[in-house]
């Protein structure tokens, strides 16, 4: 069996991180009412984030990248980023990288590498793994990885309640400069068609209950167990755990199966507040953990992307976190910045679901 290394040589870590969530919020009850359903407490979340009319994955990625750069101040500047990777399943262009726009906007051009990653909801952590490889191999001094989505949920589909907007960015660099060292990571992938969007279609399709046990849970649990075993760590060694968060239930069920507690996953379950930000979800959860972490804390992260795969990571927070944290807005500030959208028509317009051509 293939047994790849879980850490790079030299070791790497996170120099800066940033989050972004648009301020629009549509209550699940508004969506339910539009489709004649009673909002009797069975809706997966209270409300979800919706991008503004002039926002998309690229603009939101730039916001998060700027926050990450602010926190990396003193360790690396934008012009020295050897790579800019954007992971998303809502790329504004089918052909043309989002990464070049982001790199230009933050001042990383022209001597940099960019690429867009697509792996359903784990495109963001896949970008992180690539950034780790760039830095770990010496191809780059530092590399920026972003997971960002303005997720598409078909009107009337159950996913419409949770398909949200937002994401995060991390700058990967040498471990000795990091605010959190990466202790190790691993990736677990199979051909499991639980959720997909075919070329030229607007909305993804999903396999209903098939998206649970054989898809999300199998992959998250396999990747998580492998990393914990390899590092010789137990769930109790971690202060926070972050799991890909398609809905509040899945996070708790996966956490419980692996032996993590609500105290570890509750603070990072951003889905409870704004829904599922797809490629952005794992990075937002990581931002929530870093916003609260102290020196010496360990953070566990496991993403999930349909199709399917999981990336697991283990971080150890360093003393640099304290000075870095205050240089950019905390995720909490983004979550509190809410502008409710009270009617379904306005929501559709914002979600880009009304097409005139």
């Amino acid at each position, binding site marked *: 069996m293939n047994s790849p290394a879980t850490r790079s040589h030299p070791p790497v870590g996170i120099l800066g991180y940033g989050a972004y969530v648009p301020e629009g919020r549509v209550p699940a009850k508004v969506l339910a009412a539009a489709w004649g359903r009673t909002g009797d407490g069975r809706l997966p979340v209270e409300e979800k984030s919706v991008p503004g009319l002039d926002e998309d994955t690229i603009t939101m990625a730039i916001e998060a990248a700027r926050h990450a750069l602010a926190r990396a101040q003193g360790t690396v500047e934008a012009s020295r980023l050897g790579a800019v990777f954007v992971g998303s399943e809502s790329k504004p262009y089918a052909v043309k990288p989002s990464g070049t726009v982001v790199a230009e906007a933050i001042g990383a051009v022209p001597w940099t590498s960019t690429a867009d990653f697509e792996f359903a909801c784990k495109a963001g952590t896949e970008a992180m793994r690539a950034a780790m490889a760039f830095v770990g191999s010496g191809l780059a001094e530092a590399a920026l990885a972003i997971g960002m989505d303005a997720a598409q949920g078909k009107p009337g589909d159950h996913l419409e309640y949770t398909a949200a907007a937002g994401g995060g960015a991390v700058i990967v660099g040498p471990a000795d400069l990091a605010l959190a060292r990466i202790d190790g990571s691993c990736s677990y992938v199979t051909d499991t068609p639980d959720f997909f969007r075919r070329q030229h279609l607007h909305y993804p399709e999903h396999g209903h209950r098939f998206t649970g*046990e*054989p898809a999300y849970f199998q992959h998250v649990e396999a990747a998580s167990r492998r990393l914990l075993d390899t590092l010789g760590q137990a769930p109790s060694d971690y202060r926070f755990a972050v799991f890909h968060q398609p809905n509040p239930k899945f996070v708790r069920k996966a956490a419980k199966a692996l032996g993590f507690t609500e105290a570890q996953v509750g603070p990072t379950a951003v889905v409870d507040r704004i829904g599922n930000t797809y490629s952005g979800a794992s990075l937002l959860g990581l931002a929530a953990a870093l916003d609260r972490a102290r020196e010496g804390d360990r953070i566990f992260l496991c993403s999930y992307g349909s199709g399917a795969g999981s990336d697991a990571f283990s971080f150890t927070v360093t003393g640099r976190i304290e000075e870095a944290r205050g240089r950019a807005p905390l995720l909490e500030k983004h979550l509190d910045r809410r502008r409710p959208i009270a009617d379904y028509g306005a929501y559709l317009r914002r979600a880009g679901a009304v097409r005139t051509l």
Partner: protein
Amino acid sequence: MSREVGVLGIGQTPVAEHWGRSIRDLAAEAGRAALAEAGIERVDAIYVGNMASGLLCGQENLATLVADAAGLLPAEAVKIEAACASGGAAVRAGYQAIAGGLAERVLILGVEKMTDKITDAVTAALATAADADYEAAHGASFVALNALLMRRYLDERRVDREAFAPFAVLAHRNAAKNPNAFFRHEITTEDFVRSPAVAEPITVLDSAGICDGAAAVVLAPLEACRSRGSEARRPRAVRIAASASVTDTVALGARRDPLVWESVGGSARKALQQAGVSLKDLDFYEPHDAFTIVTALSLEAIGFAEKFRAVDLAKEGRFDAGGDLPICTLGGLKGRGHPVGASGTYQFVEAVQQLRGAAGAAQVENARLGMVQSVGGSGSVALTHVLEAV
């Protein structure tokens, strides 16, 4: 004069969402388990009860495929289809072959693999049990037809849908004791009341779930079952005391009274007469509880309850374990799960477990005589078997 027919072996897979397994795989596992228990390697014929392998798995010619997978070529193999009653109809085909002297050892296999398709496709496949011209073409899914029945029952009887809660609650309670059941957890009346609608007034907890499974039975002349192996190691012999099949119109609208299921009542009467017993002699009854309304209509059709009284008797606990007539003793379709074409065979296998005294925590005390009933469509075909421990 026909021969007496007995059960030589049984086998089953757990009922579950077997995401990683194919219909061939499930059928072969259950079939091999039954053959192993029967202590035989070969059979003369294989009858496969299955409703929708064509639509759900893209596979017809199923019986031969399964015979091959189970290592039973070149035995005769044929699929028996009677909608949701397929599993019961396959048992009857095997019974006829042994009773009539056409075969000495027969394998009956009920199997369905539903989870390879998403819910919409499964709903469409199940709707083929209804009348395509007069029901399905008008958009009536199978659950919608049962919803019409339940609505009419509620209106005529003037009760709330909560009256049906005991059927779901008892099914889950019994399923919790069955290691092969799909839903191994208990539910409360409150859970039932709060359950979300599928097609009003039917909710999730009125309905048997979509799942996969295979159950198998080896039938042989009763004498062969009695004389096999050493007495100490031989399970108690079980004979098929009666087998009956009765049909009615496929379309509900063509019935005199859609709340009176003549096929269910007719096949029960015929079977009881054939067995020479009466309802009160039964130690348990396995109804085709695909929806709670079906359980109520079945209990009324066989005459255990008067019209509109089944819900009252259920409330009194008369169908619970330890009641007058325990039903769904290992969870029924609701609790064990309803892999459609396999359900009739599961019921039969479970009845054999009860009569052998091998039903574990779900054992009905001193079970000697049981009746199992498999119903296809909205009461359009009913297969009834009476089994007796001998």
